[in-house]
């Protein structure tokens, strides 16, 4: 069984934000109105976090970080869900079952990465966006929690394709939208347990770190960053 994981090379990322747009469009994430966005209800499964600035003017550089669900191996969100609307699959993806969610938001409260978003309201979506909805992904109704699923619908499709071609799933068959579009190829995705895959090699890089390692959630999203940058 594979164990899917992601490596984001912060030394390559120049914060262009293509991953954010790609994620939003691929997953039909709701566009919220100004009133709601101002209340902090903007919905991003992947967001570009402004962490810090390093150095002082003019020798200063931004240190941003593309932030998504960390797909923990020991997820704290799945533990607390009262109805198993979020659970960890055998292949390591922490998935959501939208029709099962009762909207208690306990998982949001317990996510140390604040990676989950809630459908507070159903704002009227722009027509042009509705026409472009990805038909592989359901449009979530109001009142439920959602988050990055590593574009799990793509895995499903890739599996079906592979099956119809009577072959095994190959590494390139399945890749989330953010990793696919990244202009600087800073996002790597693959099977962490497959020693031949690129991610498996990269997680042994000396620059590797994960967010809040001390919590023991064992994220499967790794970041690479060298201080010299």
């Amino acid at each position, binding site marked *: 069984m594979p164990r899917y994981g992601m490596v984001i090379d912060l030394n390559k990322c120049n914060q262009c934000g293509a991953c954010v747009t790609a994620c939003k469009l691929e997953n039909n994430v709701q566009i919220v109105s100004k009133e709601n966005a101002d209340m902090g209800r903007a919905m991003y499964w992947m967001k570009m976090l402004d962490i810090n600035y390093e150095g002082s003017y003019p020798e200063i550089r931004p240190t941003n970080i593309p932030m998504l669900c960390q797909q923990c191996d020991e997820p704290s969100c799945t533990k*607390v869900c009262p109805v198993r609307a979020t659970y960890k699959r055998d292949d390591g993806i922490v998935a959501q079952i939208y029709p099962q969610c*009762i*909207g208690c938001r306990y998982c949001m409260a317990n996510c140390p990465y604040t990676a989950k978003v*809630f459908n507070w309201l159903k704002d009227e979506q722009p027509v042009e966006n509705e026409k472009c909805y990805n038909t592989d992904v359901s449009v979530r109704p109001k009142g439920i929690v959602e988050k990055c699923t590593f574009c799990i619908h793509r895995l499903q499709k890739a599996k079906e394709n592979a099956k119809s071609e009577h072959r095994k799933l190959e590494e390139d068959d399945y890749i989330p939208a953010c990793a696919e579009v990244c202009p600087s190829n800073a996002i790597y995705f693959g099977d962490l347990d497959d020693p031949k895959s690129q991610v498996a090699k990269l997680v042994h890089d000396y620059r590797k770190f994960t967010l809040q390692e001390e919590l023991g959630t064992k994220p499967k999203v790794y970041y690479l960053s060298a201080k010299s940058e």
Partner: protein
Amino acid sequence: MNDPQYIDEDEVLFRPIYETSKSFYILAAVLVVLLLFGVFMYVRQLVYGLGVTGMNEPVSWGFYIITFVFFIGISHAGTLISAILRLSKAEWRRPITRMAEVITGIVLIIGGIHPIIDLGRPDRILHIFERGRLQSPLLWDMTSITAYFTASTIYLYLPLIPDIALLRDRGGKFNKLYRILSWGYQGTEKQKHVLERAINILMVMVIPIAISVHTVISWIFSMTLQPGWHSTIFGPYFVVGAIFSGIAALIIVMIVFRKVFHFEDYLKQIHFNYLGTLLLVMSLLWFYFTFAEYLTTFYGHEPTEMRVFLYKFIGGYYPFFWLMVICNFLIPLIFLTNKKLKTIPGILVASIAVVIGMWLERLIIVVPSLANPRLPYPTGMYIPSLTEVSLLVAASSAFILGFMGFSKLFPLISIWEIKEGREESVRVVSERLNEYLPSKGHIRK
């Protein structure tokens, strides 16, 4: 009704059931309007989604959860206090227990509804039974609240039976209801015995259940990894807070009904003195827990914890935090230690302060931790919307309405216990005292 044969020595206790003043109807109408407005706002929330509240990301829990914790806390007033007092055979408990138990019953219903109000998809509530995961603290919570509700309603009902029998015997309105509810109780020796036995069993049972309820509620928070929540002390801390707020609520209810229904003869200064002392003890205990909780946080100085700590002490929530300290500690301390101030109005002031303070404490626990998550992006701010405020008001009105309704059906002070006390207490107590007091002039040979 006016038949002199029915004029009881405790007639004043029956009076609220048979006589209803105009102001009662006015108050009830106002409260019903408030309640209906709350219902309207809730329906609006159902239609539009939780977006009509002030909750956001990352503050994904707000007033509903705060009110839930608060009301469940108040519920400890009752059953726990009455059970403990009964168990310790405190004779002054007699006029208090009924009201305490009623508080529990009403408040548990209101509090228990709040998590459902908080749900994004209340229509899927049955998923909890269908696919519930016992690993989730929410399920523990549901289980223990249901158990507590069952136990405490029975515990309220059993001591009510002799009173219902009295009412039935008086005839008049609701006779059919009383007939059914009194289960043919005639006050025979055997019935009395069985009843007392049942009460005794329940009062022992209800104490651990009550403690478990609030411990489990605290676990909803402390089982998470959030800074400011992840604390071992939370179980006892919540229980202490719950009893604390419960006593305060009980005192308020007692004082109000004493005034409205002229129970001065039954609820005397001494009752309030005792309860006031108990309140003071709980206040000190609460302060001790609070102090321990925050001192360890501060001394450990862990950055994520410190952000929550500072947010409470000097950051966005500092007015609420310090108001909480004033309400929960300073005011009770001043009013309850000073002989001059420890009058009934003084105790009322202290109790009201404590109820407000304990509500603030729940606010202080829930919001700042969510507003300052471990990964500091994004941080949040929480301002409740009209929906949440009106639902809080509706919940409070429901509480008062519940009490008013109860007072029109059943006596608010346990009549048979009073009678029993009057008839037997002096004897029983002096016998008991004689049992353990050393006899005069006894010299060991």
